[in-house]
């Protein structure tokens, strides 16, 4: 084997792939080949680094130079300058703090990574996900070996229980307890399922994990299979994630070849195999009973519990279902001991949590933080704050099942209990930042539209109730609402929460309730003043020309599609509000800031 002097890591996550990272890899190989460096320098396509906004990302080791927004035409320069001549290409370095330092400091010293603790994401952006040897080199399948050769199933469950690991899919149920329930069932056929049907709009942790480190999921599922006495597993993954599906399938094939899946694993007599099942675009399939119905080939409609899946799940057999991120923690816990995991986080929320940071924030991307890190730290330090000098207004966690956290609560620690206490939830890890330009009623309506579209339609409160709720909120944003409507909205929210059949309906009103809790004044402005404070709700907008700023250039009148603007040349213009369709074209066109909306 050749001694490799340098590694070039190119991000192959969905974000960077769509920004043409495969072409960058091709270019690297071409340029290295041209210079006869192919044996000395290894190019690796990795999973997501986390900083998606700056993709495509390339890291050159051993220096650890972090190049961002690399274009194929930059590759030649990196090879020529950095790899051949040892001169870092400063113009491509990550802007954050590295450029200031003008030296190639370690990635971990940057604000974005400094506060992170990567357990679930430990291999993402580090190894080639399509190469099982790299996973093995990073302690891969060591946990499975340890479990199968040195531990009883009870010991495995005890270890997971002792670690304090809780489900990362949203509800936070203790993983060890879930496994114990299924282990207790006396049935020769049991199943282990993985929920990779990440449906929260604005979250992509699971996708990045499957793309960046598929073997950790396979290893964890085999461990779970041993713990509960199952021999077959299913990974239910969104069909919208083609790269994740492909890498998972490659990984399963490799694991079978290496004997980590299949019969008589490690010669212990333990059999376990995995199958991938594709979702088909239904958010409700993230609910456990719906997911199982879907694997069985039916409409993904949830059913009442009990019986719980641990007793009667997939194909009516005892089944455990865990989320991708939950599984990703398992091998680490086995290898490092439950104490190590339990030492991270808060009293009731142990370990770390991966968040997909998005919206009005400088560093969008994937971050993994110890539980209990405050929202302020995440937004201001890791996320780099709200861009364009705008004011932070709220952070939304938990997606369509979650809520908004207002600025006054920005010091809330990010753990299960604290988030619930402020009317939101941990959820699967979507974290969307809003600034002063976002209308909170409109945001609530956005999530309602989502859950109305995604309701399975089985139970009355969710099927009809959510639709009626959307109609009420729509009435409010269109300026036709009354104070009574706000009251009825609230009443209906609680009804849907308490009466819906499954978790989707039980949490779907949360975005409304939490905005009502923290931003009630905005609702009231919509119904009493008939005004949208953020200037988002079209029906409530009024475009106006400030006479003192208007110079009468006529460009607004020319761009107006409905001829609502009139006025003489070089004299202030006016907008006929009865004609105005509120498209905003005039405001975009005006160079003098003479047009305002309110």
């Amino acid at each position: 084997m050749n001694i490799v002097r340098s590694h070039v890591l190119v991000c192959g996550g969905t974000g960077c792939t769509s920004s043409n990272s495969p072409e960058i890899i091709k270019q690297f190989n071409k340029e290295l080949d041209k210079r006869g460096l192919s044996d000395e320098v290894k190019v690796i396509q990795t999973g997501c680094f986390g900083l998606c906004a700056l993709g495509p990302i390339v890291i050159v080791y051993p220096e650890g130079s972090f190049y961002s927004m690399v274009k194929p035409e930059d590759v030649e320069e990196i090879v020529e300058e950095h790899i051949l001549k040892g001169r870092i290409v400063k113009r491509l370095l990550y802007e954050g703090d590295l450029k200031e330092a003008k030296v190639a400091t370690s990635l971990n010293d940057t604000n974005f990574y400094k506060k992170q603790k990567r357990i679930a994401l430990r291999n993402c952006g580090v190894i080639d996900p399509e190469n099982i040897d790299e996973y093995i080199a990073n302690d891969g399948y060591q946990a499975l070996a340890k479990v199968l050769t040195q531990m009883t199933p009870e010991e495995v469950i005890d270890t997971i229980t002792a670690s304090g690991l809780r489900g990362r899919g949203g509800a936070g149920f203790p993983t060890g307890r879930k496994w114990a329930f299924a282990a207790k069932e006396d049935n020769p056929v049991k199943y282990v399922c993985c929920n990779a049907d990440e449906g929260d709009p604005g979250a992509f942790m699971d996708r990045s994990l499957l793309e960046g480190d598929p073997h950790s999921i396979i290893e964890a599922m085999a461990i779970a299979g041993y713990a509960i006495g199952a021999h077959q597993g299913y990974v239910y993954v969104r069909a919208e994630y083609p790269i994740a599906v492909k890498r998972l399938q490659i990984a399963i094939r490799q694991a079978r070849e290496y004997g980590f899946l299949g019969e008589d694993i490690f010669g212990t007599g333990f059999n376990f195999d995995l199958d991938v099942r594709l979702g088909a675009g239904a958010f409700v399939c993230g609910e456990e009973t719906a997911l199982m119905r879907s694997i069985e080939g039916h409409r993904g409609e949830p059913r009442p519990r009990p019986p719980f899946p641990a007793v009667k799940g997939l194909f009516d057999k005892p089944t455990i279902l865990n989320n991708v991120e939950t599984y990703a923690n398992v091998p680490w816990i086995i290898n490092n001991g439950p104490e190590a995991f339990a030492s991270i986080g808060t009293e009731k929320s142990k370990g770390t949590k991966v968040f997909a940071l998005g919206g009005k924030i400088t560093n969008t991307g994937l971050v993994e933080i110890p539980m209990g890190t405050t929202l302020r730290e995440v937004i201001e330090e890791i996320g780099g704050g709200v861009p364009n000098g705008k004011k932070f207004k709220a952070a939304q966690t938990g997606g369509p099942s979650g809520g908004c956290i207002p600025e006054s609560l920005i010091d809330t620690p990010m753990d299960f209990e604290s988030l619930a206490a402020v009317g939101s939830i941990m959820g699967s890890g979507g974290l969307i930042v809003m600034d002063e330009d976002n209308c909170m009623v409109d945001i609530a309506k956005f999530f309602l539209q989502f859950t109305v579209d995604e309701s399975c339609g089985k139970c009355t409160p969710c099927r009809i109730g959510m639709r009626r709720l959307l109609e009420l909120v729509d009435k409010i944003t269109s300026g036709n609402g009354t104070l009574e409507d706000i009251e009825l909205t609230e009443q209906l929210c609680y009804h849907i929460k308490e009466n819906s059949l499954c978790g989707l309906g039980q949490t779907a009103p949360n975005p409304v309730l939490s905005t009502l809790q923290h931003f009630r004044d905005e609702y009231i402005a919509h119904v009493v003043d008939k005004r949208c404070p953020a200037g988002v709700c079209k029906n409530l907008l009024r475009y106006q020309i400030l006479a003192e700023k208007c110079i009468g250039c006529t460009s607004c009148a020319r761009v107006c599609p409905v001829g609502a603007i009139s006025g003489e040349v070089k004299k202030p213009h006016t907008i006929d509000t009865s004609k105005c369709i509120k498209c905003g074209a005039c405001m975009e066109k005006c160079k003098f800031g003479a047009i305002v909306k309110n």
Partner: protein
Amino acid sequence: MNRTQVRSGKSTDKARSGSRISPQPEEKFSEIKKVIEKYADREGCLIQVLHEAQQIYGYLPMEVQQFIARSLDLPLSEVAGVLSFYSFFSVKPRGQHTIRVCLGTACYVRGGKKIVDHLCESLNVGVGDTTEDGKFTFEIARCIGACGLAPAVMIDDTVYKQVTPAKIDAILSRY
């Protein structure tokens, strides 16, 4: 007797496209048959079969669904019911290119809705429809996982980042 026939627009739409019999490419059906045989002894394979059949046929019109129903010995209503539950499956022929505007939360708060409104107008189609010239099918995506590039638009397999109404016109003109 009241013989009023009223149905929601959506349903009529489906019924119409469902009853359109297109030429049946024999080789596509034999490919689908192979898929069904592959899954024959696996429990609960309907959705996987539909996935592969859609890849082969492009969409899943009535005759394909009926073929699958018969091959798997399922009631046709079961196949159609499952299919209509999942948004990934299409019963209508698709355009040459698929435009998917991301309306995940990140893209929404960064103005994805504006792109949707703009495209509805400029392409003269509703969401889920195909342009008259058969060039584009216009869809909304629930987060394509490109939150860092918001608002993002995906055309076939290519993601365009930080799109504006003006930018999208320029992009579309290249197709």
